[in-house]
């Protein structure tokens, strides 16, 4: 929990137009580092997800049991009903769900957990990035 809070605080105002200044990408890895902390997302996928996003918050959620595309469909369908959700992506390989919210949204992990549980999977933890 402390690590989560630490990462969240560190990531405030992370990835603005000057992305390189804040996001250090290791060329030998597919992971993304946020000021030295490994985010464990697919680099290309994450950059594509962020493309065009601004004034937003991104929740990176670790999910257990998300083993197939067909089984994960409901996650996207559930989250897009929320008007505060701008974009969502599912990373099956790393078991992560990325949710871009409006800046005004007060992100509640219990709400995320319940929505993912409604699809039959378990959200384990998450971090929030301000972009």
């Amino acid at each position: 929990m402390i690590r989560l809070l630490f990462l969240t605080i560190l990531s405030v105002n992370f990835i603005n137009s000057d992305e390189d200044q804040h996001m250090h990408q290791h060329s030998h890895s597919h992971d993304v580092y946020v000021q030295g902390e490994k985010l464990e997302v697919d680099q290309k996928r994450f950059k594509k997800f962020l493309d065009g996003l601004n004034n937003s918050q991104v929740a990176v959620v670790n999910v257990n049991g998300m083993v197939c595309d067909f089984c994960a469909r409901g996650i996207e369908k559930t989250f897009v009903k929320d008007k505060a959700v701008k974009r969502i992506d599912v990373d099956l390989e790393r078991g992560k769900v990325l949710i871009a919210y409006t800046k005004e949204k007060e992100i509640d992990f219990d709400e995320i957990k319940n929505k993912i549980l409604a699809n039959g999977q378990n959200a384990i933890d998450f971090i929030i990035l301000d972009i």
Partner: protein
Amino acid sequence: MNVESRPISYSGGHTLMHFSDNMKESVYYHYSPTYRYSFGIESLDDKILNTSNSYLRFTYLLNRKNTKNAQRNLYFQSGLANKDNNNFYGIHGDWETRRYFVGFNYKEVKNIIDYTDKHIQFGVAPYLGEYDDFHTWLMLKTKKNSINNKQITYPMLKFFKGNVLLELGYDKKTDWDIHLMYRF
């Protein structure tokens, strides 16, 4: 995963299925109020006993274990027929990762002749597709029912993309297995 490995959808999800093999031909619609259970209706033609039934079906998730790389499920399934108490009940279980799948199904069916129907299915994904990709699985299915009492084993191919899933199997004795599923 296979068609029968997902007898319950996500909360609020609808599913439409068509299933055809040497034993039966059916159209099945179900709705899942929560991820724990689904109910629906099925119209089924039994090709062996030459009967037709409509079922009110109920499926309940008895147990699920989610881990980072796998999911394991155990379901209770049942169907109440519209005539002659031709009801059925059974269990279904599966374990799957992104690469491998193992599932079984056991069903007790009341009909003109009561019988049991069971199968085991194994699968491997030749490549690991990402979300929104076209996914392919190579499966092997072995099944047996107490009417003809013969074990039949045959290969199947499974494809899915988005909300559509198709399974095709072929055996020269029993002809085609065709399962089509659409979720909405």
